[in-house]
């Protein structure tokens, strides 16, 4: 199908983009890689008055080392993120999870910033941002502010960004040494969204787990952090112990029922996949 008409703006600086977004009002949309937005426009599930296209803001594609953290430009593509040496070294969970997103052509255009801003509960990267305690850097004509991932995802495809705010980058704290990571994604066909996904990072100490971060994809309207598992898994060192800790994975979640699976099925998957993710992350 053909999208409805819209005004098209292609700013050449972040300041111009913020001004365009402020001027265009609430019915404007930011266009990043277009890999979620273009299908919505084509099916006319989105009918914005104006599109502010970030495609030519090359400065937003930069991934840089900022001391204790990496700052990943909002327009860094999936393709770029999963190969970037800094990301592979300091945020390997993000690199691994990004490799499972979509397919090569989609990864050439789709962006990390777009995935996070889109806040699709089935998207893989919001849970990763949550597990890594990432901080979202947003800017508008009113200034810049930083939002912790734990306060960013507020509801189904809804973030705490204001309509005139642009996501400019994501600050990802570097993982020190001794961490193992894994993203366990369950889907039935190649190139498919997660029915449930588990983002997991563990710091090992001898034979046991000293510290763990676990976040779940598609177990509710927003990504959720499985805090009870993070506590229960401390000291665990065997597959049995991981399974016991993972039994709590779905605690407090509200998994959806849809054509891919029922809520009960997802609850079951969350426990099984979390145990697998823990075992794989411990390595």
């Amino acid at each position: 199908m053909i999208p409805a008409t819209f005004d098209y703006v292609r700013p050449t600086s972040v300041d111009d983009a913020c001004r365009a977004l402020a001027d265009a009002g609430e019915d404007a949309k930011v266009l990043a890689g277009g890999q979620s937005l273009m299908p919505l426009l084509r099916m006319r599930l989105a009918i914005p008055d104006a599109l502010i296209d970030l495609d030519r803001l090359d400065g937003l594609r930069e991934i840089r080392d900022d001391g204790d953290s990496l700052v990943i430009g909002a327009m860094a593509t999936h393709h770029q993120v999963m190969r970037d040496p800094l990301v592979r070294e300091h945020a390997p969970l993000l690199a691994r999870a990004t490799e499972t997103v979509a397919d090569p052509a989609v990864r050439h255009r789709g962006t990390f910033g777009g995935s996070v801003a889109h806040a699709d509960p089935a998207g893989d990267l919001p849970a990763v941002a949550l597990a890594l305690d990432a901080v979202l850097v947003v800017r508008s004509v009113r200034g810049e502010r930083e939002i912790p991932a734990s306060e960013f995802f507020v509801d189904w495809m809804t973030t705490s960004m204001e309509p005139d705010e642009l996501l400019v980058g994501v600050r990802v704290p570097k993982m020190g040494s001794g961490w193992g990571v894994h993203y366990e994604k369950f889907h039935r066909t190649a190139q498919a969204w997660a029915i449930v996904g588990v983002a997991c990072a563990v710091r090992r100490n001898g034979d046991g787990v000293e510290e763990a971060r676990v976040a779940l994809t598609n177990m509710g309207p927003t990504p959720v952090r499985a805090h009870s598992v993070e506590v229960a898994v401390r000291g665990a060192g065997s597959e049995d112990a991981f399974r016991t800790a993972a039994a709590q994975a779905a605690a407090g979640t509200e998994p959806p029922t849809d054509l891919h699976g029922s809520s009960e099925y997802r609850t079951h998957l969350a426990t099984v996949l979390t145990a697998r993710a823990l075992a794989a992350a411990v390595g």
Partner: protein
Amino acid sequence: MPRIRVEVDGTTYEDDVEPRLLLVHYLRERLGKVGTPVGCDTSNCGACTVLMDGVSVKSCSVLAVQADGRDVTTVEGLGAGGGTHPMQRAFHEEHALQCGYCTPGMIMASLDLLRENADPSEDEVREGLEGNLCRCTGYQNIVKAVRRAAGEMREPGRQEVTP
């Protein structure tokens, strides 16, 4: 209406386009390049895959205005000089198509894969083509064709490694 300047299969075009015009519709309806089909509304099927500045994109997920200043290669730009590209020949020889609807996208995605990996294993071909759906072949012969073309394209002295 914005004016764009885009190189498609070696020819430069300048056109006024509505912002909502998809690149795939520009290619088909303005330039007559109907070799690139549309297979879905969701950017899932990969039938519309082209190379933009040398990398694969689904041309139904890109606006024509976004191709301004870019270089686009469609399946019609392969095999310069009227010949067939080794990838096209391999698809033919290995019977890697039945209805052929997915073929242009498969060929373009395969070239993108070989750009990064000149000698892919069977699994790597399947991974590389995960964004391209085929309803007919069961993929078996597509994988064979890509590996056959890869072998030919690796031969010393070949000129035509990239399209």
